[in-house]
């Protein structure tokens, strides 16, 4: 029984992501993650293509699959039309589904991302919002960002934003009935299941 491989094949993205890799390595040559990390998308394609269940399980437990930055620079370069960045998304989904993400330091960061980005989406309807970009957690944002956060109620309206207002415009509050529909989509399509699965592990 090939549990993982069967699971990967059921993902609608898998067939497009990995058609037939000839191991030319162009994806690795152009990859920003490969410059920074010990990361080689060519080898990932090769491992998955080989179809060894044990090898793929080790891959899903490794740090490696979490190194990709999802820039998708690999896509227009692959001469066979594979998309290693998309294959990574499929592998990361599987790693979370099988609980293997918990075996790596980078994988465990999914808990933090779930608690920030997914929570933001469900609670306020945005992935990112100025209220959520804390200058102490984001020192790289610099003093101007800290200044903007301190004076946002005075500055944002000058720039045409509707900060925490009703109706349309940037940074407005999204009506509760719209947030309820977004949450219902997460419930129906597996978004909440993924969150609960990651939090439970």
């Amino acid at each position, binding site marked *: 029984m090939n549990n993982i491989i069967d699971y990967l094949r059921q993902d*609608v993205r898998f067939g*497009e992501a990995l058609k037939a890799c000839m191991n030319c390595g162009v994806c690795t040559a152009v990859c*920003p993650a490969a*410059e*920074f*990390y010990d990361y080689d998308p060519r080898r990932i394609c090769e491992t998955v293509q080989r179809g060894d269940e044990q090898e793929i399980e080790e891959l899903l437990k490794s740090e490696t699959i979490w190194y990709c*930055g*999802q*820039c*998708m*620079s690999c896509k*227009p370069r692959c001469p066979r039309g594979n998309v290693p960045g998309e294959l990574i*998304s499929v592998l990361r*989904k599987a790693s*979370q589904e099988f609980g293997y993400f918990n075996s790596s330091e980078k994988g465990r*960061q*999914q808990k933090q*991302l*779930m608690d*920030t*980005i997914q929570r933001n*989406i469900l609670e306020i*309807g*945005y*992935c990112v*919002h100025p209220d959520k970009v804390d200058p102490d*957690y984001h*020192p*790289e*944002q*610099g*003093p101007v*960002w800290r*200044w903007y956060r*301190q*004076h946002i109620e*005075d*500055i944002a*309206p*000058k*720039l045409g934003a509707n900060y925490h207002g009703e*109706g*349309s*415009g*940037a*940074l407005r509050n*999204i*009506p509760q009935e*719209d*947030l309820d*529909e977004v949450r*219902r*989509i*997460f419930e*129906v*399509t*597996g*978004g909440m299941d*993924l*969150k609960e699965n990651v939090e439970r592990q």
Partner: protein
Amino acid sequence: MANRYWNEYQKEIADDHYFYERSCIRQTFFPGSEAAFLSILRNELGKDICDSPHQHTCTGIGYHSDVVPFETTMTVVARLFSLMKESGYKNYVPSCVTSFGVFSEMVAKWHENPALKEQARAYLWEACKREFEEPENIAHPSDIIYKFRFELKPKMRYQLVNRFNGKPLRAVEHIGCHYAKIFPDKGVGKAEFPYVLAGMIEAWGGEVVDYPERRHCCGFGFRQYLVRENRGYSIANTKKKFESMEPYEPDFILTNCPGCAMFLDKWQYTISEMQNKTYDTEGYGIPVLTYEELTGLLLGRDPWQLGLQLHQVQCERLLDKIGIAYNPTEKYKGISGRINPMPAKPSCLKV
């Protein structure tokens, strides 16, 4: 012959009647840019564009951080298309480049696999009792400004010419990866010759500077920035771009992706703090503009209403080169009329 080949690199961009979708990142860091885009379309170009109060995130940042499943993002996209239909529009205009990639991805997958589109319909009906239609056209707002760049030019008060020496200002442009790398046919100039920003710069009197890492990612990397421990990836990739463009001494950087604009601005500050290094000759850094800010500035809008005071790399030196008039005392004034205290000064980057 050259024109015939170049025609193959063009995309269809709707003329009018747009449904606008706001960007999580653009409205967070550049709210003035979104306001400027809507204002320019309505006032200078006389176009109709809808800004629905019911819109929300496309989930793109969550999707590419792998905390939102494909099926969920697909159905959220379907809901946004449902809002467009409900509002009576057929041309979808997502402000964010990540969103642009997400919408293009979903539509492409539905075309390849019609059963998947039926699944999206079923999910949306079960969750929201809604129906949707695919847009007739999906264009990034930078596509629209590009399309009308020559119509805008006669309305502009300024050109991209250095008033001190009469020469074209030298710009490096940075196209967000998800604009044309995922679906090359969806971008002006495709993945190989993206021209959406270069077209604006050239039309408005500037000169585009080519440099070796022009197409390298800005370094966002989604989880590589969002988790603090991973940010070395992000800043290292941006640094690579700065080092590559530095010898060409650009006057400014122009971007069409809100995340790229933010990183190229803020990482200059961070690198200056870490290494006492700036990438211009005088220690002020290289100003970074969104295409909405650039268009608004040349049309004569107030820099402080466009939101240039939110940039960490200060833009006054660029404004001076263009010859744009501005009132320094208005910079930190808010809607209340109060002049707020200035931000703290960086230890290295001059402001």
